[in-house]
């Protein structure tokens, strides 16, 4: 097996450059993509459950007149893929390394399940054997090395990584059940976060007294805890400004009459930030931050090479694929609402009644109509400017026309990734980040 090292990198670099050369004269989307990725998934629980799977995914995608995807190509096969993708009699090419040599890779550290188990035992020490308390932890971590080559350009190499932890606490006492989830995105070298288990257990106990309303739709004011409104702008604004959605005429933000958005709202998509950042995209374009909304107007659209060409624009470096088996699409990386000037405590105190949303999950998004349904899995009621009691889960509907326009307070407490998820489009999951400060919408529809 090849190991990371200068010889392996040099031969990979040379092979990609040669393969890309075979694509010369084709349109700007022609490129060679090679990835080597390791994923570790760990599940632990305080009842002794312990599951760990480790997978490695490596392969290439060569985009020419046609696109060729292949698992685990040797360097010689990569060159042949380029010949097929070019769709013509390509010039004779020589393999730069031994036939069958595999490109270099990066590795995740070993011993992660043991480290995670030790962390959990320490962080959950107070609750580990407590009757009626179940703690389940899921840890997902990946390391990915990506190579991209375009005709007559040096091959580019980038290392990407992601690390996510989710703690689910379920507490039972006297016939009552409370459940809470705490999540964190970690950097590749960050230690496990201490205190997260305790915060999940405490919140689960607070939710013993969760109440349910009459089961009718009502229009209510809503305050989103820091980071949580990032999910809303990811779904309603971010997806609506992905180049292929715009090209299909399926975006409420760019078709018909452009809706008015709050003047104070600034939404930024920055792939350099967040839990799984990238500096070059999967087509080899330098990624750059794009201001999507500013001053109440749409100011940017996210492009890959194909959608940029159709729109007469330049790629913004947002072309991503879930794996070498998938085609490139313009994708969101880290979408966030810029911080405002309001004091978060004042926002709450200035809200006579409403709901305070701590965790939401996107359920259904209609970009063409500019409407999305979310499931609120953790929230509190607001009465006279104070949080009063927890609410049972309920669905909400947020639309661009009414709900987003009713945004009347933006806090100065921008936070990222308190609500962590992957984004799936066309069956392609990609790790994404969201961020937002405390935000108040004057009206959302809630099924309380």
């Amino acid at each position, binding site marked *: 097996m090849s190991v990371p090292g200068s010889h392996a990198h040099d031969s990979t670099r040379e092979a990609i450059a040669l393969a890309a050369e075979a694509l010369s004269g084709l349109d700007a989307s022609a490129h060679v993509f090679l990835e080597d990725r390791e994923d570790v998934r760990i599940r632990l629980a305080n009842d002794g459950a312990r599951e760990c799977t480790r997978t490695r995914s490596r392969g290439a995608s060569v985009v020419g007149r046609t696109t060729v995807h292949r698992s*685990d190509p040797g360097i010689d096969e990569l060159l042949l893929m380029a*010949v097929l993708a070019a769709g013509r009699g390509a010039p004779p090419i020589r393999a730069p390394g031994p036939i069958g040599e595999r490109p270099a890779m990066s590795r995740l550290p070993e011993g992660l399940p043991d480290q995670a188990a030790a962390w959990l035992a320490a962080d959950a020490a107070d609750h580990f054997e407590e009757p009626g308390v179940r703690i389940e932890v899921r840890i997902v971590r990946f390391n990915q090395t990506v190579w991209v080559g375009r005709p007559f350009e040096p091959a580019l190499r980038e290392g990407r990584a992601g690390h996510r932890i989710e703690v689910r606490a379920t507490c039972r006492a006297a016939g009552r059940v409370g459940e809470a989830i705490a999540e964190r995105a970690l950097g590749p070298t960050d230690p496990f976060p201490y205190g997260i288990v305790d915060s999940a257990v405490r919140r689960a106990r607070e939710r013993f007294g969760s109440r349910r309303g009459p089961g009718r739709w009502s229009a209510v004011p809503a305050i989103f805890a820091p980071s949580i409104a990032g999910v809303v702008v990811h779904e309603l604004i971010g997806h609506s400004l992905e180049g292929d959605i715009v090209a299909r005429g399926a975006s409420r933000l760019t078709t018909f009459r452009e809706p008015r958005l709050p003047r104070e709202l600034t939404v930024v998509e920055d792939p350099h930030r967040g839990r799984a950042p990238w500096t070059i995209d999967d087509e080899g374009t330098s990624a750059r931050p794009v201001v999507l909304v500013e001053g109440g107007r749409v100011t940017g659209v996210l492009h890959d090479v194909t959608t940029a060409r159709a729109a007469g624009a330049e790629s913004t470096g947002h072309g991503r694929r879930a794996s070498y088996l998938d085609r490139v699409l313009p994708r969101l990386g880290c979408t966030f609402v810029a911080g405002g000037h309001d004091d978060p405590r004042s926002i709450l105190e200035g809200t006579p009644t409403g709901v305070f949303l701590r965790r939401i999950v996107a359920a259904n998004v209609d970009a063409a109509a500019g409407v999305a349904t979310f499931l609120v899995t953790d929230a509190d009621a607001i009465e006279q400017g104070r949080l009063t009691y927890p609410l049972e889960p309920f669905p909400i509907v947020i639309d661009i026309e009414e709900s987003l326009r009713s945004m009347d307070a933006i806090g100065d407490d921008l936070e990222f990734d308190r609500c962590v998820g992957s984004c799936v489009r066309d069956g392609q999951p990609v790790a994404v980040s969201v961020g937002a400060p405390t935000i108040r919408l004057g009206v959302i529809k809630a099924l309380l």
Partner: protein
Amino acid sequence: MIAPDSSPWLEPDALVDRALHLWRAARAGVEGDRFDLFLKIARRRRAHREPGSDRTSTSETLECGLAMRRARRGGTLASFAACSGLSNEALDWVLGAVTREGAGVLSDMPAPGSVVEPLRADLDAGHELPTAEQLESWMTDRKQVAWVESGGTHEVVVGHEGWVALRGRYRSWAMTDGGKEGPRLFAARGLAPPDLADWGGEPGSDGSPGSPSTAVVVAPAAAAAVISSLVRAMQAGDIATGMPVGAGWCVADDPRHPDGLSGGMFDDAGFETRRTILADGRQAVGILSGAGTFRRASFRDPPACAASTLVVFPDAPIKVGPHIPIVARCRVLPVSPGEWVLDFGSGASSDHPAIARITPEALVERCVGTAGPPVVCADGVITPGLVFKGIEIAQ
């Protein structure tokens, strides 16, 4: 010279030879522990439409990979790892990973005596993939199609004792943009593009349930998601065996169904498959468990007890009058293990989605019948429309 779109292991016999070669190499590294190998190779061809234009482009895919389970002596669990490729390097990587760490997956493997044949083959008849031009031509007259794909997959399981089970499948898929109802996936056995004909005509005028006292028909493609969610709830114990169910909830898992998209003679751990009745229209009667029910979501996932081909029997047909709304979509959102939100999408007469809160137990009780003939849905569920009565939509 290796052709760029081919592999020496695309032929079933060659794949079996490769699997046995890797099995012999692995056996030397597991120090007597029981283990199995799972190999996959797939070749697919796809045509898709560029966004916002009539231009089409094509792709060719050759995907292969292997996975290994290693059971620890004296334990009931195994370690698991998977890697792209069928090379010796790929085997070395998974062998290293299952040796160093990885734990907690099911270790059920057929006992030597339960495997009668040294080689079990479950192969679709051989076909040639349609050409890229044929796929593009098929799309030309179907403007609603976003992409169409045809492909073949061969999978091999090699057990600890060296027995081999070989499966070969040819399938085609197409995705439509779908307009108001959103994207829709179609699938078919064989390599000819799937039939895009819909079931039972257009959805009702409102497309959502009416009052609790009236019935609603959930069309097969929407019912398939509900059925899969209900069976998962049965597996999780949220619908206990013996609980009463409605006359329409008559469902089995039948991996050997002749129209099934997945499944076959053996499961993904190599056990012979069997039909399991889950509910008989009166009560829940069983769950999927043990030999014959192991399924891998992909070669990168370890086998787990899961449905293969869920079949709802049209044993309680109800004649659907024009006044009964037909629901073309239904999304199941689990709020908690004991409660779901059903999202039927936007009703024409309302400014919010048609949403119902209901427990899984109540939902199966309210499945009072079926409507129309069974349809093979893209997720592999075979079902007619399901008729529910008593679902209350929030106002």
